[in-house]
C-alpha cells in the first residue's frame, strides 16, 4: 500500500499508470453520462412545483459539491508538497485550481439560470451563492499567485501556503456569510438537501450524474497533470524516448501509404 503511494509520487509512474487508466475512465464516465443525461432529462418525472426547471440540478449539484471537494483535494496536495516535497503533489495541486474554479463557475451559472424562472431573478445574495462566489475568487487568487512567479518552485510553495491559509479561512467565511445572510433577509429554504423526500426516479439519475461529473473532473485533472509532467520533465530521458516513439508512430501510416 505504501509502496504504491510512494510510486504515485513519481511523475513517470503517474504517467504510465494513467495511460492504462484513462481508457477505463473514459468508458465508465461516458456510460454514466449517457445514462444520467438521458434518464434525468427525458424520463425523470417533472417536479410538481418547478416543472422541468429542476432538471438543471443534475449538473448544478454535482458541480457545486465537486467545487468544494476539489478545494479539499488541492489543500491536501499543497500540504503534501510543503511537508514531503513530493513533485507530483504540486503538479496535481496546480492543475486542480483552474478545474475547481471552472466547477464553481458552472455551479454559479447553472444556479442563476435555474433562479431566473424559479425565483424570478438571476442573482440574489443568498448565503450559498455568495460563499461559492468567494470560493471562485480564492481559486482565482491561488492560480494568479502561482502564475505571478517566474520560478516554478517558488510559485508552487507560495500557492501552497495560500491554499492552506484558505483552508483555515473558508469555514470562517462560510459561517460569516451564513450569519450575514440571516441578518439581511429571512431564511428561505431553497436547498434540495432532502434527497429522501424526492422519489427515486428523480434522485437515481442524480447519482449517475454525480459520478459522471466526478469522472469528468478526474479526466480533466489527469489530462492536465500528464501535460504538466511532460512540460516539467521534458529534459529527462523517458520523456524524450516517449516523444520519439510518438513521432515514429505518427510517421508510420504515411510511410505505408
Amino acid at each position, binding site marked *: 500500500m505504501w509502496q504504491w503511494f510512494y510510486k504515485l509520487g513519481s511523475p513517470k509512474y503517474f504517467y504510465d499508470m494513467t495511460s492504462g487508466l484513462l481508457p477505463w475512465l473514459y468508458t465508465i464516465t461516458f456510460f454514466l453520462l449517457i445514462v444520467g443525461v438521458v434518464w434525468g432529462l427525458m424520463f425523470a418525472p417533472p417536479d410538481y412545483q418547478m416543472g422541468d426547471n429542476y432538471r438543471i440540478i443534475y449538473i448544478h449539484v454535482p458541480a457545486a459539491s465537486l467545487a468544494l471537494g476539489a478545494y479539499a483535494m488541492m489543500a491536501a496536495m499543497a500540504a503534501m508538497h510543503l511537508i514531503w516535497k513530493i513533485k507530483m503533489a504540486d503538479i496535481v495541486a496546480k492543475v486542480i485550481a483552474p478545474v475547481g474554479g471552472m466547477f464553481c463557475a458552472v455551479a454559479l451559472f447553472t444556479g442563476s439560470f435555474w433562479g431566473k424562472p424559479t425565483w424570478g431573478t438571476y442573482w440574489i445574495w443568498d448565503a450559498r451563492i455568495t460563499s461559492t462566489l468567494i470560493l471562485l475568487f480564492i481559486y482565482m487568487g491561488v492560480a494568479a499567485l502561482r502564475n*505571478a512567479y517566474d520560478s516554478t518552485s517558488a510559485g508552487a510553495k507560495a500557492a501552497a501556503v495560500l491554499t492552506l491559509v484558505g483552508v483555515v479561512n473558508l469555514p470562517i467565511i462560510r459561517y*460569516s456569510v451564513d450569519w450575514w445572510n440571516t441578518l439581511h433577509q429571512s431564511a428561505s429554504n431553497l436547498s434540495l438537501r432532502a434527497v429522501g423526500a424526492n422519489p427515486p426516479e428523480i434522485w437515481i439519475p442524480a447519482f449517475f450524474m454525480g459520478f459522471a461529473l466526478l469522472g469528468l473532473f478526474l479526466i480533466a485533472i489527469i489530462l492536465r497533470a500528464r501535460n504538466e509532467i511532460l512540460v516539467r520533465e521534458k529534459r529527462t530521458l523517458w520523456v524524450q524516448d516517449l516523444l520519439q516513439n510518438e513521432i515514429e508512430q505518427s510517421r508510420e501510416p504515411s510511410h505505408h501509404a
Partner: protein
Amino acid sequence: MSRSRFSLGVTACLLAGLQRELLLAVRSPGNTINPLMFFVIAISLFPLGGGADTVFLSSIAPGVIWVTALLAVMLSMESLFRSDFEDGSLEQLLLSPQPLYFQILAKVFGHWLVTGLPLVLLSPLLGLLLALPAQAYLPLMLGLLLGTPTLNLIGAIGMALTVGLSRSGLLLAVLVLPLSIPVLVFGAGVVNAALNGLPMAGLLAVLGAMLALALSLAPLAIGAALRISVN
C-alpha cells in the same frame, strides 16, 4: 557562543522590533499619512457619487467606512515588507537567532500602531461626514479596534507572498480581499446592530475570536511566505 551574546529574550526582541518599526515610521511619515488620506478621500467620494441625502448616507455609512478601512489597510501593506526586502534587512530578520514568530508579530503590531490605530481614531469624524448617528461611533471604533489588527495580519500574509514580485499591488488585492470578508461582515455588523438597537457584544466577541486566531496562526504563514519570497 558568540551567538548567545547577541541573542535577546522574547520581550526584548519584541520591543526592539517595535522600536525599529516606530522609528522607521517617524522618519518616513508618508507611509503613515498616505493610507489615512486615502481613507478620508475615498469616503468623501461616496456622497459625491451617490448623493448627499442624509438618510441614504447613514444607511450605507457602516459598510462604506468598513470597506474603505479594509482597502486603506491593504494599500498600507506595501510599506510593511517592501523596503526591508529591497535593502536586505528582511534576510537579516530571517537569519537572526530570535524566533521569527515574535519578530513578525512585533513588525505587524508596529505597523498597525502607525497605520491602523490612527484609522480607528479618525473613524468617528468620517461617521460624522456620512451622517452616522452618534450612538454608532463607539461600536464603530470598538469594531475597528478589534478588526483592523486582523486585517493587518491577513494583509501581511498576502504581502509576504508577493513581496518578491515586481508589481504586486493588484495581486495583493486579489489574494487578500476574499480572505478579509469575515472581518468586514462582522465589523459592519457591529455598527448595524448598534443602529438597530440590537446587542452587539456577541459580534464584538466574534471579531475578538478572529483576532486571536489570526494572532496565533498568521505569523506562522507570514514566516513561511517570507522564506519563500526571500529565497
